[in-house]
């Protein structure tokens, strides 16, 4: 094989993968260990920017203990979990239904409909927050005018009512990501071999049966991929909530998400605590926890695929 002449060993490929590995090391691996180290020290301030160091000493897992005893941190985790689960479920269900509807239309309509659905994904989360506040929110906003009042209820003050803040954040996330998920699932449906549909038609299957036996199994792996993507993005959600709630957690911290709280703990722009080690411990807990969960989901899917 001619490949042998060019070499198939480590050094032949080093110029190709080397830059990625170096940048990965500098901007991911080392910072991760810096963060781990930071989470194990006491004192407030940075372990690295020495001018800001205040009484640094290793205190073991005390920051982790403090994080787990911090009511607001636990509240932010609870909110983030609800936000992530709610966003994933609604986005995937809507995305799948929309992809099925578009897939069944005449092909000429596919591209324009998909593009129109994609529009919110193209906007900055800050713009979405602004638009939500001015267009959907408020007594005369679209949500009250077209959803709540026609159902016979009193208009809701969405962002001032703690019961509705989190649903508003979920709404924003669903509004933002459904188009992209629809596009992904649509592409998956188009990749399903035609003979499967022909065989189903010969057997007289149509409607729900085609969805259940061909379309859903055909995009199941993509649904999982989208769920993992939405989970990682949801845990890291910052911009939308930051813009909508002005950097706070809203009334009674009902919309306090994890990243906003870590920012509040770490920087004077937040609560003024400037407790970087505690914020680092919180970040390690959440980042590692999310990564393990996402990996577990992917591993389960792979295992199931191999078993089949």
């Amino acid at each position, binding site marked *: 094989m*001619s490949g042998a002449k060019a070499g198939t060993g480590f050094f032949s490929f080093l110029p190709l993968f080397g830059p990625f590995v170096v940048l990965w090391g500098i901007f991911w691996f080392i910072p991760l260990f810096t963060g781990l180290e930071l989470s194990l020290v006491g004192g407030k301030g940075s372990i690295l920017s020495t001018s800001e160091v205040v009484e640094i000493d290793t205190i073991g897992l005390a920051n982790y203990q403090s994080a787990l005893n911090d009511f607001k941190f636990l509240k932010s985790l609870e909110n983030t979990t609800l936000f992530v689960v709610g966003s994933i479920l609604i986005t995937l269900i809507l995305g799948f239904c929309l992809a099925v509807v578009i897939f069944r239309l005449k092909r000429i309509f596919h591209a324009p409909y998909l593009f129109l659905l994609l529009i919110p994904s193209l906007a900055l989360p800050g713009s979405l927050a602004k638009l939500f506040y001015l267009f959907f929110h408020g007594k005369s906003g679209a949500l009250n005018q077209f959803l709540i009042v026609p159902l016979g209820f009193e208009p809701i003050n969405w962002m001032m009512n703690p019961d509705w803040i989190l649903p508003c954040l979920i709404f924003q996330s669903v509004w933002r990501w459904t*188009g992209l998920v629809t596009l992904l699932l649509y592409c998956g449906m188009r990749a399903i071999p035609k003979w499967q549909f022909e065989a189903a038609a010969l057997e007289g299957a149509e409607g729900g049966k085609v969805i259940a036996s061909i379309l859903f199994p055909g995009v199941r792996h993509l649904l999982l991929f989208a769920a993992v993507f939405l989970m990682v993005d949801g845990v890291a959600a910052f911009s939308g909530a930051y813009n909508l709630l002005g950097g706070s957690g809203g009334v009674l911290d009902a919309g306090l998400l994890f990243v906003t709280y870590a920012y509040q703990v770490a920087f004077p722009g937040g609560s003024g605590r400037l407790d970087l080690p505690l914020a680092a411990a919180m970040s390690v807990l959440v980042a590692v926890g999310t990564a393990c969960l996402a990996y577990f989901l992917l591993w389960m899917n792979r295992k199931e695929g191999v078993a089949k």
Partner: protein
Amino acid sequence: MIRGMVSKVFLLSFILLTAYPFVWMFLSSFKTNREIYSPDRLLPSFFKPDAFQILFSNELFQFNEVLIRSLLLSSGQAFFACLVTAAAGYAIAKGNFRGRNLIFGAAILLVLFPKQAMSLFLFEWMATLGLTGNLYGFILSGVASGLGVIFFTQVFRKVPSELVDLALLEGGGHFGCFLSLIPLLVPALVTYCILHFFLSWQEHLLPLLVLSNDQLTLPLALSKLADSSYRIPEAVGLAAGVVAMLPMLILFGLFFRKIRTALADWVVS
């Protein structure tokens, strides 16, 4: 028949929900605050582009600079991420060396760890390196993309080995082979470049931490405009939102077919 009608109504309602608010946003950038606070009103009384004038005259802050900076940072990151991750993807897909699974695992770790949760650590580390407030440092920090490596690994796995062997015969080793394959992979490269641009364009927390106050990017500028203490007309914030959306709309509009093709190829693999 009825089921078909219901599904079409569902689709059109959802499209209305996704597209109409943006039409409203664009038209509201010409409105007064009073008109904006009546969301059921679509058209402005007059089409006066005052909000855009305020933005582009740099009255509030150097908006032109913010826009150009965001464009340069995002396109710089997207360009280098494309090169670096495509090369790594080629090495993983076509190489048979020890450690390639480790590199792929490293890419997966990048995807699985929430980037925003890591921002604090990155900020600390970049401060140590003296890279805070450094635009080149910011670009470099976003180049190693796990999603890119996974995407290009799948793309290169689909390139027939015969083609690689043929390219290797012409000399230049694997690096030359990689370069010679690039013209065949334009849809995948364009797709990933746009996706990375899109992710970088929307980045909020890292620029907030790493860049200095006079190095605003668009997401930071939008937050500033949303700050009620500035008493800025709402139309200005909406106009900034419209301007911020334009590059993405243009890119996706121009390359939508290519993106769909590349995504369809990718999901098969």
